[in-house]
């Protein structure tokens, strides 16, 4: 039983990160019907910004700021930085392709992705950077329930993710911007006819999605340390999978999908073998798609490519 619960915690940690990445994919897809393959790189940049702040503050072993200040600062910087990057990508790589055939922005996205990876390689070299979190927030600090140990970092990550997701849900359902996002996602031209500046709404969508990716980047850095130029690729693929399982374009779907993928990976590795954990994930996905062709929460697909 403890083993099962331990895996639940492991799965939720990973799942919350996937969910945050998946949200960016899903929101952008919802509003532009675009698979933003550069999203993983935005997350990578977020992780590097967090690392940069940590290094500037003297590193994890000997920070000039207390962890309680430093960690939020890392999150803030990474979220803003990633958000701005997302807006810039939209402005220069996707907006000129607004009315182009659907697959053209896909190639543009891949171009952005190559560029950002290479830029990170150029600027930060290929060395795998380490947040060294245990120095900052020791793993021994945390909750112990019987034999179960949940470190503070994991709690921090899960709670942050939940807070961000609740904030996003409120934003989308309650605020004027959120409603404009939904209106634009449903019918961009009609939204424009209402005087909604759809370009700005789309930019805002990219900003919010990228902010979440930036937060996910710092989270990965905190719990799973390694930060390097290529980290966005796999995480992007997982986030994308999560978005699809949930029903791409659907915000609660992305959250559920992310958690589901995280849990599936953890339980597959724990009960079967980590050898096949990726295969298990892909099989789940294909299974879900064959049974529910639009994902768990999705709406039927567009017909045209």
């Amino acid at each position, binding site marked *: 039983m403890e*083993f099962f619960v*331990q*895996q639940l915690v*492991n*799965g939720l*940690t*990973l799942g919350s990160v996937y969910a945050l990445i998946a949200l960016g994919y899903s929101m952008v897809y919802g509003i532009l019907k675009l698979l933003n393959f550069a999203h993983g790189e935005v997350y990578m940049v977020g992780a590097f910004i967090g690392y940069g702040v940590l290094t500037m503050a003297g590193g994890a072993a000997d920070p000039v700021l207390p962890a309680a200040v430093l960690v939020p600062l890392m999150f803030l910087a990474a979220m803003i930085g990633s958000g701005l990057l997302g807006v810039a990508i939209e402005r220069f790589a996707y907006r000129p392709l607004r009315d182009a055939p659907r697959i053209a922005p896909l190639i543009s996205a891949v171009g952005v992705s190559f560029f950002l*990876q*290479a830029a990170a*390689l150029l600027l930060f*070299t*290929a*060395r*795998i950077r*380490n947040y060294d*979190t*245990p120095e900052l927030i020791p*793993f021994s600090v945390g909750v112990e329930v019987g034999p179960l*140990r949940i*470190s503070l970092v994991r709690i921090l990550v899960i709670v942050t993710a939940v807070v961000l997701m609740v904030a996003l849900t409120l934003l989308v359902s309650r605020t004027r911007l959120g409603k404009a996002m939904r209106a634009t996602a449903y019918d961009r031209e009609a939204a424009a006819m209402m005087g909604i500046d759809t370009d700005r709404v789309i930019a805002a969508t990219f900003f919010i999605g990228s902010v979440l990716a930036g937060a996910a980047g710092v989270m*990965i850095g905190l*719990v*799973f*340390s*390694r930060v*390097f*130029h*290529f980290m966005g*690729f*796999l*995480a992007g693929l*997982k986030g994308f999978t999560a978005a699809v399982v949930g029903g791409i374009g659907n915000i609660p779907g992305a959250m559920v999908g992310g958690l589901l993928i995280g849990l599936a*990976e*953890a*339980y*597959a*590795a*724990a009960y079967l*073998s*980590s*050898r096949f*954990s*990726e295969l298990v994930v892909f099989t789940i996905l294909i299974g879900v798609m064959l049974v529910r062709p639009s994902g768990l929460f999705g709406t039927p697909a567009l017909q045209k490519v």
Partner: protein
Amino acid sequence: MMTTPRNVRGRFFVLVLAVLALAAAGCGGEDDATTGDTGAATATTDAATTAAETPETPTEPTAGAEETTTGPTTEAEDTGDGQAAPADCDGLLVGIAGPFTGDAASIGQEQLNWARFALERFNADNGTNFALVEADTQLDPAQATTVAQQFVSNGDILAVVGPAGSQEAEAVGPIFEPDNLAYIGMSATRTSLTGGDYPTFFRVVPNDDAQGPTDATYMVDELGAQNVFIIDDQTSYSTGLADIVQPLLEEAGVTVTRDSVPQDQTDFSALVSRISDDTDIVFLPWQLAASAQLFSQQMEEQGKTATIFGSDGLFSPDDFSAEGAYVSSFAPDITALPEQAELVEAYTEQYGEFGTFGPPTYAATQVALTAVLAACEAGDVSREAVLEQVGDVTITDSILGAPLTFDANGDVEGAQFYIFRIEGGEYVLVE
């Protein structure tokens, strides 16, 4: 928009002007150089002079390769302490192939930097102006074979360092062999690479057959292992080593559990939780030290007490520092050797920290350059000659510790493995 002919003419005029301006800038540079050469010339103009004096682009344009040298290289011609090399050694090239971008770039970039470093020092010591041709393979054999063809087609490339992966080394073999182009592996350890199938292949690192038994014996005899968890990282290197260690342990009566995890895995915590309480050793034949570091952190997080035993891929004091872990290595810790201190310091100052993949690349580059120099000093600048020279190369004070020579198969003579224990972040030699 209509373009009027007059407009076009103006445009053309501007273009001609621009080209002229650039050309003038080039001449200006040369003038600078000739006047300033007598006294304390700036390095910039110095290099420009050398560039102007050396016949440019020794390669055929179709060969599609261009050398990249660095400033100090060219300066060495008059100031280097070594004697000047024979004239026909001018502009000879050595290829280096590795995963300089892509997901394995952390390995490839370290290899590349050490190769550049080796080239600089070799040129400075021997008064040569050899150069490297760098080619990125992204660890994809398809790219490696294209790159191999590039090397083969460039007549000035006399030896190759790399490629990095065993599967790449296998793929390029049939391309290098007919041209007698020697290639020296710095990280390909698959046993079957040496021993006949790839006659032009050499490697400065011992193969899996050398490391596997050492590790297995140490685990059984010295650490008294009863229950070992082997986790490979789904690479050619890792599965090969694991496949050798596993039966050896089993023969010694050790209970072995085997699992495998993708090299780019984000999280190991579920895997870590499967380490049973009676497991005394976790054997990680991995190549990414940073991943092993996370693995050890997650073991600590979950209160697992088994000992990590890493292969040579984890020998990386800057990245892997799990207290009490063991790491095997084919070389002594060069950062601890007084005779290599100067080298390590010079490298670190120029390129920063490094792990396990650099020093063998340094050695491999040294071997290639030494063989090329020996061949051209002997007056035979051909690939056959270089291939023979590589077999005969002896590097007495190799960065890898012992003198470096090859046996008939192309493997390192007398390969020996060392075992280190990590104590307080230090790698302490225990065998």
